[in-house]
């Protein structure tokens, strides 16, 4: 039977890295920051990103999963991606019905050429279809292998390849990449 350990529920206790693999402290220590960053690739508020990750952690720890040791990351990634997409979808619905809701605005400190370029790319990624965006983020942010991405997203490795290809192509179009080296020849093998 899986044991869920929760420590330091008050006062910001230090996570215990030696706890069992499915204890909150060790999960937090190992995955939290990474998952928040992953979620933040999709949702533009850090607060929202943390909510998504928090939900994923709660779901993982309280859900009736029997997870093999070492597979927690794949579960968390999947849950975070689903949560982030869900958040985005809800936000889109909200904006459709209340158009006055302001878009997030970067602070003066954050603005600048680098930030502008970065936001432009992140926004482009967020415009991609769900699966393409997920593959791109997992590939180029988390640097996951094809097999790991396939496991995380529950798709075949061939699908990972095709989503990556289409996503990159779409990003290239969106970003107007002038460094493009050229498309595949018609009928050529990718």
């Amino acid at each position: 039977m899986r044991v869920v350990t929760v420590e330091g529920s008050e006062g910001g206790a230090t996570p215990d890295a030696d706890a069992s693999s499915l204890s909150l402290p060790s999960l937090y220590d190992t995955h939290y920051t990474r998952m928040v960053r992953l979620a933040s690739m999709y949702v533009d508020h850090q607060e929202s990103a943390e909510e998504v990750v928090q939900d994923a952690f709660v779901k993982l720890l309280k859900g009736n999963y029997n997870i093999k040791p070492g597979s927690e990351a794949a579960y968390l990634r999947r849950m975070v991606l689903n949560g982030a997409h869900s958040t985005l979808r809800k936000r889109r619905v909200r904006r459709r019905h209340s158009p006055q809701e302001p878009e997030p605005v970067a602070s003066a400190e954050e603005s600048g050429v680098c930030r502008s370029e970065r936001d432009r790319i992140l926004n482009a990624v967020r415009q991609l279809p769900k699966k393409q965006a997920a593959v791109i983020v997992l590939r180029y942010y988390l640097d996951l292998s094809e097999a790991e991405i396939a496991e995380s997203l529950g798709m075949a490795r061939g699908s990972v390849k095709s989503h990556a290809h289409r996503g990159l192509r779409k990003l290239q179009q969106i970003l107007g990449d002038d460094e493009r080296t050229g498309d595949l020849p018609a009928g050529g093998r990718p």
Partner: protein
Amino acid sequence: MTEPNNFSGVERRITEAFRSHADSVQPSPDAYARLARAVNAKDAGVLERWGFGSYFRPVAFVAAVLVAFGLGGYMLSSQGMQAVESANGAPAAVDPTDVLEDPDAGSSSAEAQADDESQSGVSGSLGVRPIGPEGDNRGAEALRQTPSTVASGERVESETERYMEGLAYSPVGKTRLDAAEKFLELLGVTDVDVIETGGAANSDSDSDADDVSSSFLVRTRAGEGGDSVIITTLSIAPIGEGFVVDEARSDEYNFEFVGAVEGELTEEDDIFDPINIIAATDVELTDDDTRPRTVTLVPVIPPSPRFVAEDSRVVDHDTVGASRVWVVVGAEGPLVGRSPFSAKPAYFVGSDDRSEYTVFGLAPDDDDGGLVLRAEPNGEPIGLIRLGATGVKRLTIAPRLAGDRVWWAVTAPDGAQGWVASEYLAPNDAFDDAALVALGSDLRDALSGQLLIPRVTTFAYPVYVGPITDPQQVKRGLEMPMAWSVVRGLGQQTDGSDDSGDSMVRYFGIDRWTDGEIVVPDGYLDPAARRSANAYFGGLPSIAIETVNPDTGGRERVHIFVSHRGGHDSGLAHTAIVGIVLEREPINKGVGGRGEPNPNGPVVTTPRPKPPDRTTVKPEPD
């Protein structure tokens, strides 16, 4: 990624942007405390919201009454009793891949289910439907007796419940499952259970084309011993709504079905052409392309001498009996087991299987000298069936999984009965000549002086096997021009319907190899690569052509696997290409696409001879 690096600029920008963004994100100082509170408070929160919140008290009351009555009835049922029994035991460890489409799939919580449905856009996306005569209860029996290799009983029960709920108000789900069922019927696959493991319909603007596809597990019904094995997985997509070529030719699919459109081909229709589909890149049909079509299903089984053209089926709207024609875009081998080739028994599952089989695919110098007959799956040897023996008959006992292989119960030609590894059996009629004289013969012998007439009985299919680890000695002499004859001949294997005479060449990138060199490898040194190749090609000899891919800078090699029929001195030697393995070195991602240097040093090669004029090598007419 085996993707060629055409996007180095955008890849670099993405990577930099991601890293820059990630560096700027730090968890809030009280993140851990908030998280811990959330974990602790989860259950209480639910009670508060749904049980004691003033708004929901009436709802809670009605729900409680309904649950009380419903639970009472449920507890009286056998399923309920089983659920209670199973709940008392710890569930078996579940591999993440068993959960398949979504980690939520294994959860019985209403919240997880609702979340799942809201994200997929489909209700009741999980389900089990037995295929077979009305009233046949074996499928249900199988569900209750599912062995641990397939899934836990609790999970199957949960899936069944959820599916039955979903089916009631989800015509989309029903249609998908009907389509999968119909395809299996068309393929003659009977007595199996079809479990929908995932699927989604377009429900919002961020869905992409693949969201309309759906995937299924196909597994045998439980036999007398209560065994049931997953035979294959199946993916389907509706024509006209996002059928994506790339999906249909994943390296992992051991067989697939592609359609051919009747009449004049257009650019959009190319994907349904059995030749062009493998030459097309990333073609999608538009949503409004709803023309009725007749689709010829052509099994493309990469290495397989089992492929026979008669397996094609014509399917149209009426045949399928649905408002859409669904195309099977892929099917994988057993989830357990290394060899996708062994998924092929899907064709032959069922009590009506009266086929006889031939032992093939073993190397002639195999230690055992034949196919070992065993007392139990992967058990003690009790006999040997020699390579090339025909007349092996299957017993109507469900196949079993053991030692990463699918095992069939058979009667050997001498009457002995036992279990054999199914991957070494092919139907007798898969071969034109039952005397499989040289299936395992050495290609180099075949090449010594005989004109090779490529006779492609199936479309070869590129499979990424692994990194190049086996530079081998080069054989000189006639081998190389002969090899090129094979390669060029392969390029002429078309459907004859248009001028796409070199589509196979384009697909396999043969034209890229004009500056390449030919090697004749003795085999793979890398164990994993060897195992994979052998799983597909059973140790058949191969020719390899090697070069540097100018697009990526990486070293690549195409292995062409050949089976040889007929003796050298008979003057009737025929060599058939039965498969192709595309092997690539690991290629650095991102920066320029230059490949890693071969850790084994340069491959010993000789310059490629001038290929013969393509018109001088004619494929043998069918």
